[in-house]
């Protein structure tokens, strides 16, 4: 319709118009590119500078000379300890969380019992509880059982706060698996437990991997619980490393930038390798709304 009514002049006009629009759009896009990259540029450049290099040369100047001593010092001062502790906490919490949420999603998605809708509603409602509201009682609980200032104090809260959304997503996911699969397995003599481990769990793999990415990233970055429940440097996780290094080297910005670069690096590497999968996983939280 639109094309038919357009004569030659109109057509040319609209072509020019669209070219102008595209030029503006591209300029805007490049501006956004600069805005996005500037802080990264600042971080990486400074991590290779000498302590007062930036103040003398200015922020837009390349490091002169380039040095790697900042990285050496950060690693010598125990960076990988923080890293390793984060890996341990996230790995344990993630495995527990995936098993427990798959456990819960199975009956909620595939069994008929009286309390089913109520339990489901209860778990889903927990998604909207802000974790800050629970900080003081969890601090209290942790000191009471003697877990304060140890890595195990984090596992309970991490698993529990990841559960509601994971159960929500997995329940929806397991509902899409056809009923006939279990029925035929039942005829072959499988009970519910075997069904779960040998049928449903393997079929839920793609849902589980999305959840692993989303929750893995948020546990890896978690700050508030870690900052409340851990106190000694030899127990702290990666998000607390920055504060710890800043406390010791507040004036030495290049050291902090080296810590920053090292702690950002794993995510960037993962992003480069698993781009689409990672983006999809990180967006899983969007269903929360």
């Amino acid at each position: 319709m639109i094309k038919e009514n357009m004569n030659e002049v109109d057509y040319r006009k609209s072509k020019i118009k669209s070219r102008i629009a595209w030029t503006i759009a591209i300029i805007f896009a490049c501006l956004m590119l600069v805005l996005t990259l500037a802080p990264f540029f600042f971080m990486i450049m400074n991590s290779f500078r000498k302590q007062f290099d930036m103040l003398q040369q200015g922020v837009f100047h390349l490091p002169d000379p380039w040095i790697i001593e900042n990285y050496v010092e950060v690693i010598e001062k125990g960076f990988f300890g923080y890293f390793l502790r984060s890996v341990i906490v996230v790995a344990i919490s993630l495995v527990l969380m995936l098993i427990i949420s798959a456990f819960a999603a199975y009956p909620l998605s595939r069994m008929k019992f009286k309390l089913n809708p109520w339990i489901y509603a209860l778990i889903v409602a927990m998604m909207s509880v802000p974790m800050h509201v629970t900080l003081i009682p969890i601090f209290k609980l942790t000191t009471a059982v003697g877990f304060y200032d140890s890595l195990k104090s984090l596992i309970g809260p991490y698993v529990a706060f990841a559960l509601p959304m994971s159960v929500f997503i997995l329940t929806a996911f397991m509902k899409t698996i056809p009923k006939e699969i279990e029925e035929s397995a039942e005829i072959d003599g499988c009970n519910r437990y075997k069904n779960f481990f040998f049928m449903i769990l393997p079929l839920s793999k793609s849902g589980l991997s999305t959840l692993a990415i989303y929750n893995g990233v948020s546990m890896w970055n978690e700050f508030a619980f870690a900052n409340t429940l851990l106190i000694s440097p030899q127990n702290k996780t990666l998000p607390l490393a920055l504060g710890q290094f800043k406390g010791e080297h507040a004036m030495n910005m290049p050291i902090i930038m080296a810590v920053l670069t090292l702690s950002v690096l794993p995510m960037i590497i993962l992003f480069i390798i698993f781009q689409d999968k990672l983006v999809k996983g990180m967006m899983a939280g969007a269903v929360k709304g």
Partner: protein
Amino acid sequence: MKKDNKLGLAQAKARSTARAATVFLIPALLLITIFIIYPVIDTFVISGYKWNGISSDRFFVGMDNWKTLIHDEMFWKSFKHNLIVMVFSILLQIPLGMLLATFLDAGGKKFNLFKVIWFLPYLISSVAIAFLFNYALMTNGGIVSSLATIIKGQKTNIDLLGTAPNALYTVIGVMAWQFTPFYMVYFMAGYGNIDTTIYEAAVIDGATRWQYIKHIAIPLLGPIFKTACTMSLIGSLKYFDMIWNMTQGGPAGSTELMATYMYKLSFQQFNMGYGSTVAAGMFILITAIALIFNKVFKVKEDY
């Protein structure tokens, strides 16, 4: 009365189902009870006490803490900051995210590099972003001050995080830097979910890509828009990590949010009784706002 065989069998099956369901659900329910439900209740209980969080003696003070909260200027100021953050988050992040998504959708595959780079900020934790911008926006020699120096031709220092009205807006800007990529990908998924036959039909009718986006795709994104607003709204009421690491609520409380205020009271001043009251107040406000927002939007959707 003797039941017939069939009914007995059905009952037995129902019972075994119930038993299996219980076994599968117990771990999740146990953890949620210990780490979410019980703490929320306990927060309300502790709010009735004067307690420093460490010593065993705590005094029951009834509603005193709640009376203090209602007249606590700092708490309401923090809440106001949360609302400002909320409004600017919705006004900045969502339209900007949508603009970037539209650009990428219109450009197709050849703009992939833009997409990859624009997504980068969302990969970094709020804590790392806080430290990075603390240094990048330094008054002396930071990026903004240096730019101003070049433009003005003389040494200029711009104090973005150390003075009262600037700090809050700087923090809002940094939040936009962090979260715009999230909404970008979110709206891209929205564009992707629109049935391709709609686009094909529009092209057959002679619509350009831009006309399709303006008149067909954007109106179809309505429900996604609502969800994006809800997420932004709830997210900004709970905001904590970045502000805590960037300004600790300062200077002079000008970037204080409900969560940072609560944290400061509880874990720096060890006033856990009143800290719990602030946490409980925060819980009530967030729940109320979320409920109201959902209700208002549902009504609109029903037209």
